């Protein structure tokens, strides 16, 4: 019983969060500074997801060679910057991660 309550309420709250500004911006005329700041949202949120994902293991910052994700990720940043190609970035990132992991396994 309480399990279904959790599912329904968390679902409703999450849906409400996702819907919040979509509805609000229908009704409100927002100031220009607010509208201008919207373009920073994807850059800021996604960047704040990316770096911790690359530079940590088990919620501890790890930039050592034992964390190949960080170096594979850095290489991917370089590829994305030079080529602007999504698939190429993913492929180079994955291949270099596997290579780094293999090298790490040998050492």
């Amino acid at each position, binding site marked *: 019983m309480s399990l279904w309550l959790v599912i329904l309420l968390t679902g409703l709250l999450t849906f409400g969060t996702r819907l919040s500004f979509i509805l609000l911006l229908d009704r409100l005329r927002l100031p220009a500074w607010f509208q201008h700041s919207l*373009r920073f949202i994807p850059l800021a949120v996604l960047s704040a997801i990316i770096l911790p994902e690359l530079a940590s293991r088990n919620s501890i910052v790890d930039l050592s060679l034992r964390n190949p994700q960080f170096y594979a990720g850095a290489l991917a940043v370089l590829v994305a910057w030079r080529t602007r190609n999504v698939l190429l970035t993913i492929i180079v990132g994955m291949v270099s991660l596997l290579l780094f992991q293999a090298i790490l396994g040998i050492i």
Partner: protein
Amino acid sequence: MNLKEEFWKGVRDEAPILLGVAPFGLLYGALAMDAGIGMPAAQAMSSILFAGSAQLIAVRMIGSGIPVLMIILVVFVVNLRHALYSASIAPHIRHLSPGWKLLLAYLLTDEAYAVTITHYHQAGDSTQKHWYFLGAGLTLWAAWQVSSTIGIFIGAQIPPDWPLGFVLPLTFIALVVPALKDRAGTLASVVAALAGLLTIGFPFRLGLLVAAFLGILTGMLVEGKPK
């Protein structure tokens, strides 16, 4: 592009991300069964809540008998970042009917948002781009439902150092880096990334929210008053 082309471009652009999402769906299904949730509820959570990391946290908490109110509060906080996505996507879908808005809000996950907002910021007629959003959103939705189901019935037969989850940050890199076109945007990104790293110990993904706000604030300050 017409609506059909938009839709299928959304599907195609979302496709690589599925490599990273599917292992999490399997893991969720397996963890849900370990927590003793049972099949109908576990699958219902994937379609009603439809939020990867929140579901993983929720089933862990349910399994360890944490009070209902606490679980609901934690899931709410973990998913607060979606309000930012909502604000950022809102101006682009303002012209749509209420039905479309409800549907797209339901599909507004990290992974669908990332490709869709990138698509909106690119050139081209944006009155049809909600079909791209729908294509990306439904693709992720289907993959999440199916991978959850497989996880529920078969369990997660994934080795612990399975590298496919790495596709997610790689995709986000491929979307963000080319979008860094000016000083304000680049500094917003760098500050958010560093702040995200510094706040890594914060519970319930609160570090992500703090870092995002610091990044947005940096962007606004650097850009100064709009002309």
